[in-house]
């Protein structure tokens, strides 16, 4: 029985967010929402993370950084874009320096809309992400067996 989904570790990256979504992400770890009951840990290190949580849009300066961090996460991994800006670029979309949502540089699996995204919806997104994480893990295992 795979228990991999019981230990999803998060990496939270702030693209060019107004910090509204960031506050809500951190609110998830407080006693009120307590995501740790799902085994979620907010790590600071891509090497240890399973779920990449991005807030804010992508600009030309952080595009490389996001790509690099994504590369440094070991498989299986899930990317969640939190908030409207991370999903599409939001109200900053037309700015000269903004490239758009997180999916302009890396593949995004789950989109959590909202400005700012509510903690409940973030948790909802994470739970969906965890399910996907399990699926990906099983797929990875199967492909390894096939090789």
């Amino acid at each position, binding site marked *: 029985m795979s228990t991999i989904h019981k230990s999803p570790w998060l990496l939270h990256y702030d693209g060019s967010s107004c910090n509204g979504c960031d506050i809500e992400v951190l609110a998830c770890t407080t006693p009120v929402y307590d995501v740790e009951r799902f085994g979620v840990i907010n790590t600071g*290190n*891509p*090497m240890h993370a399973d779920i990449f949580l991005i807030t804010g849009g992508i600009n030309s300066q*952080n595009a*490389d*950084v*996001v790509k*690099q*961090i994504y*590369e*440094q996460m*070991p498989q299986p991994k899930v990317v969640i874009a939190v908030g409207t800006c991370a999903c599409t670029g939001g109200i900053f979309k037309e700015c000269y320096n903004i490239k758009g949502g997180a999916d302009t540089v890396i593949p995004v699996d789950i989109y959590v809309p909202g400005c700012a995204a509510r903690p409940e919806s973030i948790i909802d997104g994470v739970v969906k992400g965890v399910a996907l994480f399990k699926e990906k893990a099983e797929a990875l295992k199967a492909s390894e067996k096939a090789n």
Partner: protein
Amino acid sequence: MEMLVTALICLPFLWAILPAVIHNSKCRAFFVYLGCGIVIVLSVFTAVQWYLAGGQTLNFDLPYREAFDGVILFGDLFLMCLITYLSFKYKKGVISLLAIVQTLLVAGLEFFGPELEELPALRFDWLTLVMILIIGVVGSLIGIYAVGYMHGYHIHHHKELTDRRSFFLAMIFVFFGAMFGLVFSQSLIWMYFFWEITSVTSFLLIGYTRSEEAINNSFKALWMNLLGGCGIAAAIAVGILAFNTVNLYDIINLAIEHGTSAHTLIFLLPIACLAFAALTKSAQFPFSGWLLGAMVAPTPSSALLHSATMVKAGVYLLIRISAAMADNYVGNMVALIGGFTFLAASCLAISVSDGKKVLAYSTISNLGLIVACTGCGYEETIWAAVFLVIFHAVSKSMLFQCVGAIENTTGSRDVEDMQGLMAIFPKLAIILMIGIAGMFLAPFGMLISKWAALKAFIDTSSVYVSSLMVLFICFGSATTMFYWTKWMSKILGASPREKSRDLTKKNEYISMFFHAIMMVALILGFPWLSEHILKPLSEDMFGVVKQVISYQNIIIMIVLLVGVFVIPCINYVMTKGSKAKQVITYMGGANVGDNFNFVSATGDPKEMHIANFYMEDIMGEKKLFTPAIMISTFIIIVYMIIVVGGAF
């Protein structure tokens, strides 16, 4: 046997003439190699002969004893004149006073003092065996290394200096002769003569480059060592005037017989003087300054004199007199100074980044541990002390040579510049690693000795000394671990530099590889060593044989030993084939494509430097050195007053 010993002492002195007069570089090198080869063969042959003959303690004289006595007297006066001349030449005339006073004291007593019974001047026992092997083998290997090193030193790096290689190599041979003489002597007058020669060669070699710093440091070394010489001279004076003997063993036996009761402190007086002399020679606090200053000398002389052999003369003498120091004031003084030095020097070693200085501090610190062991004066501690002497000689000489070779190759001996040495010069790095591992890791030599020493210190009878010593050892071990590990981690890290040409000469490698092989052989052979060399040694000194370390622990040590070699090897082989995706290290996503550069605030790539911790505000030289000197001076003065005051 007498012939062999005579050859061992006299040959190096005579051989020194050859490099001194031959100025053709190739030809001189050949004679130095030959000389070193002869010294190795001779010392090993002598040792083996004596061992096979059953290892009986021998008391004997050189042939033509009277002639040699005359030579020694003349030699003493010559050294005095030399020192006086040089110190006036460099406007440090005060120092010559020390030399004049002590030489005249000894010479005067010899002429006008009471007639002494003629006793054999030399002695050969187990401790001598260990010492001649160290001097002969380790010393000669350094001699071989010196030829290549000095070539690179003058040709590649220090073109501005006058080439005085002939003088340098000649001095090394003089030094061999003096050391052999020192460890064979049982007459204090003989020992005093050889002792002074080592002081003077050390002085001359430190001043080799004749730069201002070198001259200042060499005179510092000179006055401290001469102060020690005064100690021996005083011991000779007391011996002649009070006990009518200058025989080291008579003095030791008198001190042991008359025990520790307060009104017989007079018997301890010569022992205290000798111990004082030994402390200066072994560069214990407060006399550590000269050894640090001595690091300006070219590396072979640092390796030979200031780490592998000459400073061992001090601990050699302490081991000799240790039986007379068990549980009395002198022993307490020596133990406290040693323990304190062990801790203080290892703290100071944390705060320096110059590789040679780290080695100098660690030499002082390890000598401190040995000195502490001798001050305790029990069988276990002597066992540990001799072990430490052997291991330290080999691994430290290897480390010095390696740092010297690194400096010649990369142009820097700073630890910070050794980042990723493993990737650039793997051969040098491996030698350095073996040396460092030998200095502190389980289960290498140091550790076995530390185990035994700690046990013995707990059992020491004086409550204060025992508690303090245990604390010194525990804290000193921690700080020792710190500075070695951070050096090791520097070597193993990745390096941004490309592989470049290794400028190390073949003969330097020969010497270093021999050392590495010896190191490994010593580690593997330590149960044998303990059984066949150290046991008879302790039986000789204490008349009892004690199993210092239980068989169970020997087995554990062997398991650990196998572990240290085998576990990483197995793991290396097992993980070699494992699939891994290469990634760059995490720098907040700001790497510029590799692990060495990051995107700076201006958007340009900038090289990242990783530096070790040096803790200058806690362990710095500025902060600790002076207090350490003061505390240790205080300890010495208090105990000397007790002993001297009690004697009269």
